Each structure stands twice: as C-alpha cells, then as structure tokens.
C-alpha cells in the first residue's frame, strides 16, 4: 500500500481515538461533577434561574404536594391490584372488572387534575415569563406523554383479538 495513504489512515485513526477519548472523558467528568441526585428540585433552579426566595416557596409547595400525590398513587395502585385479581380469575371482561377500570380512570383523572393544579401553583411562584415556560413544558411532558400512551393503547385495543 502507498506509504502516504498508510500515514494518512493512521493519522485519521489516531485523531478519532484522541477525539473520542477527550469526548467521553469530558462527558463523564461533567456528569459526575454536576449531578445532584439528592435534590429533585435542582432542575427547576437551574432551568428557570430561580432565586433562593422563589426556591423556598416552590419547595414548600412541592413538599405539600408530594403526600397528596402519594395518596392518590396509593389509591390507584390499590385499584389496579383489585383489577388484576378480578382479571386473573376470569377469561372475560366482567362487569366488576369494567367497574374497577372506571374507578381507576376516575382516580387518574383526579390525580392528573391535582398535578396540573400543582404545576399552575408552582408556575405562579416563578417570575411570569419563567412560569409560563414551566407550565408549557410540564404540560407537554405529562399530558403529551399521556396522549401518546392513550394513542398507543387505543391502537393495541384495536388489535387485541385474544380472549
């Protein structure tokens, strides 16, 4: 093979190795130094440039909301367990199972409403512009994902011939 071509290919390989090494080292170092696993609200502070006063208020709202959310989640989980036990013993969708599904849906709707109300309250504790951005992003992250899930679920229901 041509000597110049060998030199060029070797240099390219070396350059790729140097670049990749620097890239992964820097990425790893950044992740290790900047991750704050203990605080769930660190993202809010960094993303929306919140002051200590605003963060204190938002932390109070957050800690007041978490028990309500946990309570709703526990209710949903209990209803899901009941539904599974009903579905586990039968091969048909009984009226009791349909009733449980409705209860779960109602609980989910209540929980979602509670969650959206929390987002609104938190957004009001932020500067107006940041609040609007926060609300839009949280709605997109929660309801947008929910819509996708519902669409996929509706697609699955349409193609579920097994009984």
């Amino acid at each position, binding site marked *: 093979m041509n000597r110049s071509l060998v030199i060029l290919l070797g240099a390219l390989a070396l350059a790729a190795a140097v670049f990749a*090494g620097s890239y992964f080292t*820097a990425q790893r170092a950044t992740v290790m130094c900047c991750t704050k696993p203990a605080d769930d609200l660190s*993202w809010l502070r960094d993303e929306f440039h919140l002051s200590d006063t605003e963060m204190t208020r938002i932390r109070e709202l957050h800690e007041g909301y978490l028990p309500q959310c946990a309570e709703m989640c526990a209710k949903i989980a209990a209803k899901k367990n009941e539904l599974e036990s009903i579905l586990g013993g039968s091969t048909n969708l009984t009226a009791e199972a349909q009733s449980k599904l409705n209860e779960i849906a109602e609980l989910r709707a209540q929980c979602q409403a509670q969650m959206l109300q929390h987002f609104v309250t938190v957004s009001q504790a932020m500067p107006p512009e940041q609040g609007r951005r926060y609300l839009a992003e949280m709605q997109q992250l929660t309801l947008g994902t929910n819509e996708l899930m519902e669409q996929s679920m509706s697609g699955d229901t349409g193609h579920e011939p097994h009984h």
Partner: protein
Amino acid sequence: MRLANDHAGLRVGCIYEITASRAKSSTGLSRPGKNTKLRAADKVSAVLEPMKKEDINPADEKLGTLLRESRTFPALPPRFQQNVWRRIEDAEAPAKSESWLDALSALILRPRFALAAAAALVLAGSLFGALEGRQAVRHDAQMNYLASVAPHALR
C-alpha cells in the same frame, strides 16, 4: 624525415589540444565523464597520442583523412548545457511530493502540525463532551423532578 615526423607530431599535438579545448569550450563542463561526445573525443585523442610518438606517417593518405575527420565534432543538441545542469540540480535537490496525498502526509508528519492538531482535537472533544454531559445532567435532573411530581401511572 625527422622534420616530417616532428611536424606530424606537432600536428597531432595541435589536434589533441584543439580537441581538448573544443570539448571544454563547447560544453563548459568540468566533468568529462558526463558527456558521451566528450568521451568519444577523448578516445580519439587517446588513440592518436601514442601515434604521435612512433607510428605516424604523414604520407599516409588514410591517416590524413582520419585526422581530418577527427577534427570535426557533431553539433550538440540545443540547450544542451542548460539541460545538463538542470538534470544535475534535479538529482541533487530533495525529493518533492508528487501528489496531494504525499503533501498531506508530509504535513501530518511535521511535529508542529501534529501537536496543533492533537491540541485542537482534545479541545474540541472536551468541549463537545462537556456539552453533551451537561445535556445529560439536565435531562436526568428533569426526569428526577418529573418522577417526583408526575408518577408514571399519570403519564
């Protein structure tokens, strides 16, 4: 007879001198081995030199003809001298790169270029890596917050 011999020796000596001087003046070279025509002239002179001492007969018509022929030199090709010097310079000059690939490989092998390229690659890699790491940290923090306020059952 002695005079004739001396005269013949004188003529041959003149021919030899003329041959040498013409060879020098026509080429302008100080390296006689480089030119085949000069070598031919030298051979003729070398053949004639012993003859001037012993075996020259001025009456010999054939010898006279040969001597007359030996005086003639074929004309050198045009720009002969310049071409010789050019070939000498080309032979003594360092080897030049023949293609862009050779030029590029020669550039890569320069220590200064290699160091600069390595530094640029490390810098660019670190910069992109840090940006990507920052994005990953931001995404993880966002997911942490989202998991705390919006459990998967609601999303």
